[in-house]
């Protein structure tokens, strides 16, 4: 069944729709149609005139009718050409426009000048390097109601009219406003799925809430139940609720609820009140070496007071914040450190360092490789932290860091002390305690797993007392993959232990046994009291920031 498109156009116009909204109700979905609506609507307007002429002069033959049509078309083309030429300062700008009954002016070019200026102002301040953009519209809720009322009128008057074919306001706005905005800001309009830069326009309408009042009559039960649950619904109207209220609405219901049939006189068109520009986060990857035993990974603040003056995070952020022109407070908000685990304050992290990533929220640009090299230099200059390389990575790479946290093994170097004679040795109890060859043998040959197993030793660890107040009490099974001990020349009581552990092993507790809450621990192997003097992470076995690093 053919739907009378001219009639749709005519009725929309009668109700007070702008050209673009007429095209929306006609169901036009080709973006270019919205770039120059004036040209496109002539098709419908002309035919309408033509039909009228034919009605009036039905005595004339078809040839004459064609002539009239052609003449009118030419006239209009000339007119639109004139408009096209004067595009830079359209005469319509001076004229007070009649705001569209549906979109409240949002799709009317005449209302756009201020919006362009506001976008430009934000962009000039933020200076994004990105040469594409996507745009999003936050439209007044009254447009939902008004749109529906016009659709109901069309459904009533035009047989087989399908309101579902309506082109959404947001789409039509992107195609019309977005295209023009592109020329004003010198960037290429793209979809939100492609461009990392999103420009959101918040458009307000003075009578928005007042016009929605009628919904309380139309969907009385819905709003009653909402007001009874006021705790759950702090705001009366949301887009969802407006749509819900309009689900089964009829024109009669609307007429009964509102004198103006919910299309009251528009006192002032909707207006852009704010522009928000955001760039999707960027990511940097690297590895940090921590040389200090008095440096936490992240700021250590207790009861509002700093326990330690600095942190790995702050040292790494400092030069990056400077390149991005962020204040310290802003850096704290916009930079995020994601590391593959963390070491205790008093533990150093040596070797190739610990893998980490930095998430930069709303970045203006990617830093150049020269800047990244400079950042590494600044970070490393303080002598507490060394970062040799920072490279741009993508969000998907972060999964490797998180996965690594559960699966990666780590190699530690521990300086341990033997505090008592081994129960296995028959020695004079008053003689000095020393690390013996037998001790080393007890450690280096110990195995409690099957020959051929990847891990030499399986241990169980209760949640350490030092974290027990904030973590559940659990007994976990962990593995020591490699274990090797050596004497320390010149220090008879000390031993140097290299141990490679599975993720989540508490090495400090293994070194002293933590009141036998970790077993079998180093004291169990030696049958002597032992403790830890110093601990270094020697290697975090994870390929990061790329598969070729570290080469081992």
């Amino acid at each position, binding site marked *: 069944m053919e739907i009378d498109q001219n009639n749709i156009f005519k009725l929309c116009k009668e109700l007070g729709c702008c050209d673009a909204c007429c095209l929306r109700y006609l169901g036009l979905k080709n973006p270019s149609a919205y770039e120059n609506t004036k040209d496109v609507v002539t098709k419908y307007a002309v035919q309408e005139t033509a039909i009228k002429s034919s009605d009036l002069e039905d005595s004339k033959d078809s040839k004459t009718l064609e002539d009239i049509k052609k003449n009118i078309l030419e006239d209009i083309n000339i007119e639109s050409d004139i408009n096209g030429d004067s595009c830079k300062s359209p005469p319509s700008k001076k004229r007070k426009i009649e705001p569209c009954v549906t979109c409240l002016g949002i799709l009317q070019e005449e209302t756009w000048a201020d919006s362009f200026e506001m976008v430009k102002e934000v962009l000039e301040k933020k200076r994004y390097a990105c040469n594409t953009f996507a745009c999003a519209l936050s439209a007044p809720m009254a447009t939902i109601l008004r749109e529906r009322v016009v659709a109901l009128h069309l459904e009533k008057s035009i047989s087989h009219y399908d309101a579902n074919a309506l082109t959404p306001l947001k789409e039509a706005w992107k195609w019309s406003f977005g295209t023009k905005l592109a020329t004003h800001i010198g960037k290429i309009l793209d979809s939100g799925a492609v461009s990392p830069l999103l420009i959101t326009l918040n458009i307000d309408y003075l009578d928005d809430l007042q016009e929605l009042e009628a919904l309380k009559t139309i969907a009385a039960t819905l709003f009653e139940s909402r007001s009874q649950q006021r705790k759950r619904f702090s705001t009366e109207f949301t887009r969802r609720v407006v749509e819900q209220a309009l689900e089964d609405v009829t024109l009669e219901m609307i007429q009964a609820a509102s004198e103006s049939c919910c299309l009251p006189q528009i006192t002032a068109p909707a207006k852009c009140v704010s522009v928000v520009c955001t760039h999707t986060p960027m990511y940097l990857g690297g590895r940090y070496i921590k040389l200090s035993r008095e440096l936490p990974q992240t700021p250590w603040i207790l009861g509002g007071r700093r326990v330690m003056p600095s942190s790995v995070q702050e040292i790494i952020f400092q030069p990056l914040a400077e390149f991005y022109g962020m204040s310290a407070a802003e850096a704290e908000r916009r930079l995020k450190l994601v590391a593959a685990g963390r070491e205790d304050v008093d533990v150093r992290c*040596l070797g190739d360092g610990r893998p980490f990533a930095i998430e930069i929220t709303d970045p203006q640009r990617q830093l150049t490789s020269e800047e990244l090299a400079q950042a590494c230099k600044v970070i490393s200059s303080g002598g507490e932290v060394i970062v040799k390389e920072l490279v741009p990575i993508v969000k998907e790479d972060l999964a490797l860091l998180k996965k690594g946290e559960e699966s990666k093994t780590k190699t530690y170097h521990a300086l341990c002390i033997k*505090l008592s004679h081994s129960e296995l040795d028959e020695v004079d109890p008053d003689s000095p305690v020393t690390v013996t060859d037998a001790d080393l043998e007890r450690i280096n040959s110990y195995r409690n797993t099957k020959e051929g197993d990847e891990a030499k030793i399986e241990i169980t660890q209760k949640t350490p*007392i*030092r974290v027990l*107040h*904030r973590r559940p009490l659990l007994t976990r099974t962990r593995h020591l993959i490699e274990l090797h001990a050596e004497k320390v020349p010149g220090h008879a009581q*000390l031993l140097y232990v290299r141990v490679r552990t599975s993720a989540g092993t508490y090495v400090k507790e293994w070194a002293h046994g933590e009141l*036998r809450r970790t077993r079998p621990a180093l004291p169990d192997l030696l049958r002597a009291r032992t*403790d830890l003097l*110093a601990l270094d992470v020697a290697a975090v076995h994870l390929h990061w920031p790329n598969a070729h690093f570290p080469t081992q």
Partner: protein
Amino acid sequence: MEYNILDSVDLTDVSNFKSFTDRYFSKRYILNVGGKENNDIMLMFHSNRITLLSLAPSHFFFKKNCDYKINFNVHNIDRLSNTVKGKGKKGGQMLNPKSVICKIEYDDGANFDVPCGMKGTLIEINEELIKDPQLLKSEPDSTGFIAIILSSIAISDSMKNELLTHEEYLKSLKL
């Protein structure tokens, strides 16, 4: 090696190396609990609200030479069936200062109760004592501890303030 671990620590005082409990816990003492002479207990407070319960070195237990058993089923409460769930340690047995954690039963028929001395939640019984009861006598301030108790910051702090410190304890022993 680029950053020698030996150079990164101060080794001048290794001979006076502090034990694990001395490093991380503050020792406090309650003497003559329940009016019983030398029924002395020691509480070791970690800075994080965790407390270890032990017998004080002056306890009469250390003077008596007789085999013993440690019974954790006291006054119809089985301390060994204690379980705690999650970060909040839900389900742990509630303790007040008079709650008995275990009973020491000598082979000669004598026995005495070990009270916990403070308000809190029982987190863990030192199960090593079941395998090796001798630890209670040989390592009272380390592997021979009796139980782990969790209290609030307020209780933990006020107990630390009120009870005898290690120095005060040593002084009181000389009297």
